[in-house]
């Protein structure tokens, strides 16, 4: 990826200077030829036509950030039966590496800072990094073919939430997104947890970097240990005690990050183990005994010992039955209902457990539960999903610019702005106050009022075949009589549908 980027810049005549002068958003015409063509709305397409949300619409609602023009027709051809076609689509989405994603890759490449090595991130203004991170996230949600992957990236970004406004997370969150969340989003949970535990941004965010115990009178910092148990693994009622929190904290003492305050100024952002800060005594965690280090180990062996113990801690917490239930509950809440159905949680937890936290088969189980197929149109879209789904539905050409992010800010859902470690809420209630901004957004996008975002509703209406068909496309089902009447009488049909109660649900 890095090589490719370099090549891209080299190919351009004095590319760096040109890019600097023009800004990446306005590539000179000569450079635009290097970009792949926009796919465009394409030819005529067939929208859903049932009175209720059918299985195809249902998977598009949940495994993607919303259907684009033509998506429904395309996936309906994957099999004869709608349910089988929907499953075939899910299988494609569960193997993101097999999905060609050139358009999104090119579009996200404009956010140059996202590819910077850890230490070099510190050369940038935090504001720029945060903006590029938000914009790249939105860009991928809108454009990527690997939609379920992006959905899961968002899920894990909430699960392992880090607010970049704290300390050096300002620089390090970019690396956390790239090196922790994205590589593991459809991978193995224990590996993601380990990466997160040793993520420099996480060590800053939950104070792991100052968790130390040089002698028996020093008190470890429990912040990370508590969230590890409460939020990341076993869950608040998962059966751990305050002692367990303290013991986990002791196990994790000594892992710290080189700060920009450190002199000499190098290796900044690097995670280091400091044996002198680690507690080598015996510990007891969730009923397991973790022995003390033998006396007289040299520095290297001491580090090996502590690392092996860290591995053991991760093993204990990730294989704890409550962890499977906790993750399954959150997944079912996300994909099904605010109050996740018990039967589904059980089934999903079971797969999580017997695959040792393999996320792909866990999701496969989720998508085969009856509860998933029954839970149609009953989740209130969070603002980010609302915005992304509206952009996708009308096939907006967008630079994922700050005007869009401002709308998300107003709705309290700009990516990476959630202050506490529990992540943005995944239930309806906290978001019910955001409707006015959704409506304003619906008007702004359909009236082409957003700088950097363009829609062509006339073409869209033509391709889908008129007003009623357009409503079918936007709502994922045949509109009611009232909806069609409102469409016509509002004077702003598309805005009305995007603002309507039905479009807020998925």
């Amino acid at each position, binding site marked *: 990826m890095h090589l490719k980027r370099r090549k891209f810049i080299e190919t351009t005549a004095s590319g760096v200077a040109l890019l600097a002068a023009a800004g990446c958003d306005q590539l000179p015409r000569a450079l635009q030829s290097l970009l792949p063509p926009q796919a465009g709305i394409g030819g005529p397409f067939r929208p859903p036509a049932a009175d209720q949300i059918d299985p195809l619409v249902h998977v598009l609602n949940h495994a993607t950030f919303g259907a684009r023009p033509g998506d429904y027709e395309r996936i309906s051809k994957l099999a004869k039966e709608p349910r089988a076609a929907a499953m075939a689509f899910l299988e494609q989405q569960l193997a993101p590496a097999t999905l060609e994603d050139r358009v999104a890759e090119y579009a996200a490449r404009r956010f140059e800072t996202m590819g910077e090595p850890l230490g070099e991130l510190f050369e940038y203004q935090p504001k720029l990094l945060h903006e590029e991170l938000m914009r790249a996230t939105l860009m991928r949600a809108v454009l990527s073919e690997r939609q379920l992957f992006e959905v899961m990236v968002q899920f894990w970004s909430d699960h392992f939430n880090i*607010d970049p406004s704290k300390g050096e*997370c300002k620089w390090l969150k970019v690396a956390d997104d790239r090196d922790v969340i994205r590589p593991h989003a459809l991978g193995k949970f224990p590996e993601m947890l380990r990466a997160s535990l040793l993520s420099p941004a996480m060590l800053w965010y939950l104070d792991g970097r100052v968790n130390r115990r040089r002698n028996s009178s020093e008190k470890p910092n429990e912040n990370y240990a508590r969230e590890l148990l409460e939020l990341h693994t076993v869950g608040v009622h998962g059966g751990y005690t305050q002692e367990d929190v303290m013991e986990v904290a002791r196990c994790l003492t000594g892992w710290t990050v080189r700060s920009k305050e450190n002199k000499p100024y190098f290796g900044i952002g690097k995670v280091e183990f400091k044996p002198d800060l680690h507690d080598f005594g015996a510990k007891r965690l969730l009923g397991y005994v973790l022995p003390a280090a033998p006396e007289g180990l040299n520095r290297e062996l001491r580090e090996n010992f502590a690392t092996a113990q860290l591995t053991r801690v991760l093993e204990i917490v990730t294989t704890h039955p409550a962890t499977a239930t906790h993750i399954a509950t959150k997944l079912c809440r996300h994909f099904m209902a605010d109050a996740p159905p018990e039967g589904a949680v059980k089934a999903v937890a079971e797969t999580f457990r017997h695959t040792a936290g393999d996320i792909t088969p866990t999701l496969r189980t989720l998508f085969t539960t009856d509860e998933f197929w029954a839970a149609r149109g009953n989740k209130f879209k969070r603002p980010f999903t609302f915005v992304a789904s509206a952009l996708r539905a009308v096939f907006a050409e967008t630079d994922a610019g700050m005007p869009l992010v401002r709308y998300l800010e107003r*709705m*309290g859902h700009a990516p990476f702005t*959630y202050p506490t470690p529990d992540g943005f809420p995944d239930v309806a209630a906290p978001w019910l*106050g955001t409707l*006015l901004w959704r409506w304003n957004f619906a008007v702004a996008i359909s009236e082409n009022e957003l700088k950097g975002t363009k829609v062509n509703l006339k073409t869209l209406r033509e391709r889908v075949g008129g007003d009623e068909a357009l409503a079918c496309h936007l709502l994922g089902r045949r509109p009611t009589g009232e909806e069609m009447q409102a469409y016509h*009488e509002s004077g702003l049909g598309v805005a009305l549908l995007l603002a309507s109660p039905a479009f807020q649900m998925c």
Partner: protein
Amino acid sequence: MNSLQTYTTGNGDEQHTLVVIFLRGGADGLNMVAPLGDDGYFRARPRIAIDAKTALRLDDFFGLNPLLKELLPAYQEGSLAIVHAAGSEDDTRSHFEAQDLMEHGGLAGGGWLGRFLRANNSGSNGPLSAVALGHALPECLRGAPAVTVLETLADFSLGTKRAALVNQLAKLYGLQNTEVGAAGRSTIEAVRRIADMRNTVYRPANGAVYGNDDFAKSLLELARLIKARVGLQAASLDLGGWDSHFGQSAVMNPLMVRLAKGLAAFHKDLAADMQRVTLVAMTEFGRRVAENSAFGTDHGRGSVMFLMGGSVRGGKVYGRWPGLSKDVLDGPGDLPVTTNYRNVLAPILERHGGQPALPQTFPNFELNPVPIFG
């Protein structure tokens, strides 16, 4: 009206509104509320100290800058309190660092007010539960559920030519017997109420007169919102430009007038409604005790905080005065901070029903609240 309130806040017309004013740039507390009883003050500021003869006496030690005279009635009637030598633990004397720490409430993600509103969240938040008046979201509100940044009430609408759209949305949301339907109906009610407000000329009550500056205009919009009872829990606004390194009086005097006039008008206008409001004004740091060669002052530490509200036990200057002798001054010669700003905010948040939310609002800080409420 009641339904909207119940939906947004759950406690009807009793909704309390917290107004946070940030005086950006480092406001000189020593020349706003001068320690007339401390000779060190006059010695350190031979040319720019407030004249003891013209200062408005607050007690037998402090005097109010005459340019803040409009604040005196509220002080005398007991609804304005002052905390002196207040500030944060940040000793970088950098505007950015100090504002950042103060607004974040320590080394933590999000702003203190944002975290407070999240943690104090009783369920759902109305469309106007948190408002930042201005063009950008201030850091203190970062992470709040649904913050609205607006310059005027006109921003809270679907535009002026969208009546048909609003009517159709009202129909569709009216048909939904769900929480989303209810939220849509409440939102439309709020939009309509604010549209009505916009369409009527606002006449401040009790002969209150707001100025024409942005600060006064924001306060006026805020007063309207509070009176309209749309579920406003918190509002923030800025009055910036206090960085008085050079020719301090030219920099500060107009700002002090604006501050005092604005607050006085707001106070007079809201009158009985001030019972439901607490307003706090604060700055990232105060100025050096000694004046510099350019009739100005450099970045310091302690400054003042102003608190206003019906239940504030006002008419009093709070805080321990540390004195200005060389041995007590901080760093290069600054008024030490004897009251951490969190200890002033905490009792306000408690009063706004958020006692359980305090640990999340101000993490890693042992609170010792100043008893500013009766």
